[in-house]
Structure formats: C-alpha cells, structure tokens
C-alpha cells in the first residue's frame, strides 16, 4: 500500500506543496546529473584545464587592453637608454619593469603588444585552415569512395610539403607582412583538421541516428549540418586549439628567421631574433619573450588537452 515511489504524488496530508522539491528527487538528480551538469563538473574537476584557461584568459585580456596596460609606447626609441636591465637587476630601473631593448624601447610594452601579434596570427590562421580542413575532411568522410580517395590524396600531397620551407619561400618571394604570414599559414596548416574531421565524419555517418534521419527523408545538407556536425564539432575545437599553438610557434620561427612579421612590429619571435646580438651580456633580452611565447603556447596546448578530456573522458589515454 505504502509505495514510496507514489508517496509524493498521492494527494493527502503528507503531500509536498508545489514548488518545494522532494528531497529524494534531489538525491536522484545528484546520482544522475544532466549532460550540462556533468560537463560543468568535469570542467571544474579538471584543474589543469582551469589553470590553462585562466592563463590564456589573462593573456587575451593583456592583448586587448594593451594600450591601457603598456607603461610606454612600444615603438618609441631612446638610444640614450639602450639595454636597461629589468627592474629585478641591480642596475634596473623602476621606469622599465622588463628593461629596454637594443633601441631603448620599453620591453614590457613590447611584450604586451607582442601578445596581440601572436594571438592574431594564431587565431586567424587557425580559422582559415579550420574552414579549409573541415570542408575537405567532412566531404571526404561523408561521401567516401572516389571523393574520399581524391581528398586523401590531396592531404598526403600537402603533408609531404615541408611547411617551414614553403612558408619561408613564399613569404620571401612575395614580400613579408603580417597578413601574408596569416594567409600562408592558414593555407598550409589544414591537414590535421582534414584528417580528424574525415574520420570523425565517417564514424558519425555510420550511426543509427543518421540512418534514421536519412530514412525520414532528410536532405544531405540537413544530415551534415544538423545530424553529423553537432556530434563532431568537439573534435574541431580540439584540433583548433592545437593549430592555434602551432601557428603561433611557426610565426615566431618565421619572424626569428627574418621572414615573418617585420620590424618594428613587436612580435615575440622577432624580439628573440633582435636579442641574439646581446646573448652574451644581456641574456634576459631573449629569455623574456621566449618565456612569454612558451607560456602562451603551453596554456593553449593544455586547454586543448583539457577540452579533449572533458568532451571524451573515456579516451584520455
């Protein structure tokens, strides 16, 4: 008679008033949280993701607020004030927390503005390559057969072209600029997107819900955009974070070799290249931008790792 499952629904003296939840329902909710709550808990439980996210967020903020945060103009030279060491050195000055470079420009200001260059290049070229790579990958994975063969062939061809060499040559012959670096990297770095999206699409395409949607007469665009895409978009985001890091490192290498961002733009790679002449007596000139670069790339990579763990905890290894 006294079935506990029916108790709260039975009208009577012990029925709970509307609006007040049954404590047993709360317990059930904790035992079986919804997908959003599960995701939130995974985010909060993944400490390296949180740390990386915070660091990355701070760097983005630094780049956005550069005009406010930078203590000096990053372009103004002062040849009487060259290579002042950072504030923590005895000879340092409080005016220049990170010292000044070989042309007397404030180093902290250049580091802050350098974040803009790195982020801009990383994000824009990852966006370009993401569009190219996903288009190719999804097309190959969805249609399979000959289409897949042709696209796989294109991917293999692209993979056999050495990225740095091609980028260097094109930039050198066309003329170095920020835009060109973005475009060239965007046109070169789509391979991983294509490979990952191709296999993810293949996998999703063989699922029952796609067959079901196809059976009720859904069109190809509908199948791709509302059935397959939502289920594989997490792969896209994960690859994108790694490609952002990759593009940032490549820009730094190109700028270091003198064929990336051109002076006087404050790029971290360029700052390391300019600092090479002072390696012996003022190693901090290259230590500071190198650390900035490593921290940014580290935080982006850790974000990617974290996203992968959160979206698919079962294949963490």
């Amino acid at each position, binding site marked *: 008679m006294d079935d506990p499952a029916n108790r709260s629904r039975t009208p009577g003296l012990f029925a709970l008033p509307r609006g007040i939840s049954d404590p047993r329902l709360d317990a059930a909710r904790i035992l079986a949280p919804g997908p959003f709550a599960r995701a939130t808990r995974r985010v909060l439980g993944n400490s390296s993701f949180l740390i990386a996210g915070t660091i990355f967020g701070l760097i983005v903020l630094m780049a956005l607020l550069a005009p406010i945060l930078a203590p000096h103009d990053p372009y103004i030279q002062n040849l009487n004030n060259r290579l002042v060491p950072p504030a923590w050195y005895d000879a340092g000055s409080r005016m220049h927390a990170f010292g000044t470079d070989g042309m007397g420009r404030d180093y902290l200001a250049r580091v802050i503005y350098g974040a803009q260059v790195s982020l801009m290049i990383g994000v824009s070229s990852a966006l370009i390559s993401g569009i190219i790579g996903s288009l190719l990958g999804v097309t190959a994975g969805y249609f399979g057969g000959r289409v897949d063969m042709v696209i796989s062939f294109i991917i*293999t061809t692209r993979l*056999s072209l050495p990225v740095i*060499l091609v980028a260097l040559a094109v930039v050198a012959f066309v003329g170095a600029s920020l835009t060109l670096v973005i475009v060239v990297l965007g046109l070169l770095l789509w391979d991983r997107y294509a490979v990952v999206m191709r296999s993810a699409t293949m996998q999703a395409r063989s699922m029952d819900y796609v067959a079901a949607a196809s059976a009720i007469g859904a069109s190809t665009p509908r199948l791709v955009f509302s059935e397959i895409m939502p289920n594989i978009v997490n792969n896209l985001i994960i690859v994108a974070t790694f490609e952002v890091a990759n593009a940032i490192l490549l820009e730094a290498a190109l700028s270091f070799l003198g064929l990336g961002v051109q002076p006087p733009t404050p790029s971290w790679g360029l700052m390391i290249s300019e600092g090479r002449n002072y390696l012996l007596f003022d190693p901090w000139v290259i230590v500071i931008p190198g650390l900035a670069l490593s921290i940014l790339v580290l935080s982006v990579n850790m974000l990617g790792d974290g996203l992968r763990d959160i979206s698919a905890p079962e294949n963490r290894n």
Partner: protein
Amino acid sequence: MLKFTLQRFFVALLVAITVSLVAFSLLRLTGDLATSLAGADATAEDIAAVRKSYGLDKPLLIQYYNWLAGALSGDFGKSYYFPATVWELIGNAMPITLTLAGLGLLFSLVIGIPLGVVAALRPGSWIDRVAMALAVIGQAIPNFWFGLMMIVLFGLILAWFPISGNQTWLHFVMPSFVLGYSSAPAVMRLTRSGMLEVLSADYIRTAYAKGLSPYRVLFKHALRNAVIPVVALASVQFGNMLTGSIVTETVFSMNGLGYLAWMSISRQDFPVVQAILLLGAMFYVWLTFASDLINAWLDPRIRVG
C-alpha cells in the same frame, strides 16, 4: 605483401609527381623571377635578356618538363649565386643535415620510448605525471629559443660545447639535442598509450600466467607491439627534422641543408630552393612509403586491412 607493396608504391609515385609540380609552380607563380634577378635598376631589355638566358621565356609546362627531366638524372642546374651546380652545394650540405637529423631522431627515441614505457607501467603515478608534464612543456617551448638558451648555458656560461659550426662531433651535440627534444614528447605519448593498450591485452595476461619473467613479457611481448605506431611516427619525425633543421642550423650556424635553404631563399637563389624543396618532399614521401612497408611487415593485419 607484393600487392600491398605495389599499391603503396603507386600512390607514393603519384604523390611524388604531384608534389614536384606543386613545388615547381609554387615558386614560379609567387613572383617574376627575371625582374628580381636582373636587379633593381635593370632596364626592360636587361630583364628580357635575363629571361632568355635563364630559359624563363619558355612556357611553364616546358620549363617544368626540363627541370624534372634534369632532376631525375641528378641535374638540378646551376646556382644563381655561386659558381657551382646545385647538386654540388646540396651534396656538401646533405651529410651534415642527415647526421644532425639521425642523431636528433636517436635522442628523441632514447628519451621518448623509456619515458613512455615507465609512464605506462604506473599510470597515474608521480613518474607518469612528471613524464606527461615534461611532454606538455617540451611541446610548448619553441626550439629556436631552446637552442639559444642552450647556447647561453652550455656554450657560454659552462663552455662545455662549441656554439657554432660543424667541425667536430662536439658541435653536433647541442643542435641534435634541440632537434630531438621537440619530437620526444610525441614519441613518449605514443609509446605510453601503445603500452597501456597492449598491457591490458589478454595475451599479456597469458604470458604472465604461464610464468614468463616480467622482463620477457615487457620487452618481447608488450613493447614489440606497442612500438609499431612509433615506427611510423619516427619516420615522419625524421622528415620533420630535415625541415626543422632550417631553424636549428641557423641558430647554430651549421652548413647543412636547412641553412643552405634559408640563405638561398634570402639571396633568391631559385634553383637551390626548388631542389631542396623537392628533396624534402621526396624524403617525406619515400620515408612514409618505407614506414608503411615496415609496419605491414611487423603487423600482418595491416597488409589485409
């Protein structure tokens, strides 16, 4: 196995031809070579003369055909900058880069495989976490900067190694370590995940159950299977190192292919750039082909599937 080999060979050949076409047209289409060769204050006649003497007035397809036919017989033409053939320049630089990349690969395997095995034996332990942290940090550090840091520490402060040049084997220690460390994380991760997968397989339990020593199980049964994907990765990494050598050789001023490529790009020495680009791509294509075959030989399932 023969069918598999032929199939792969055909694909590799097709890729090789396409890549050669891309490498050729990429550099031809990005600018007018004759104008930049003739110099800043050349007249229209000068440019026309340059164009004719370098054979740049012919249709692109014929230029490509001539270039490819030459390349196949080992003749990449003459350098625009040095009084030497492209092949002589490359021949002098190649041994240095191959040594560097070979040593770099050795470093990355020697660091990556043991770390991966140890990490997989005790997943979640401190040693696993340290190895993973090292991998994540290793992948974030730009290798040209790492090279400069090594120059400061081991070259200038401690003065253990020479900081530039390629005269003795000591000159190769730092650059090959710099090249190797950047691919060690990938080797380590792949070894670790391969070992984790293999160690949970039934045949490993069987091997333990029939009383084999843990050493034998680990090395004869587990590692051999876990290392299969590492072989493919290693060949790709070797190809990467050949191009990664551009940055490393520039940092350490070694006269290898990478340095030659960089210098040739900055002095518009076009035939050299094109030859190195083609060579790099060919290395990749045929290394991948070789690793496919090695994999098929190690794991018969690949041949069928």
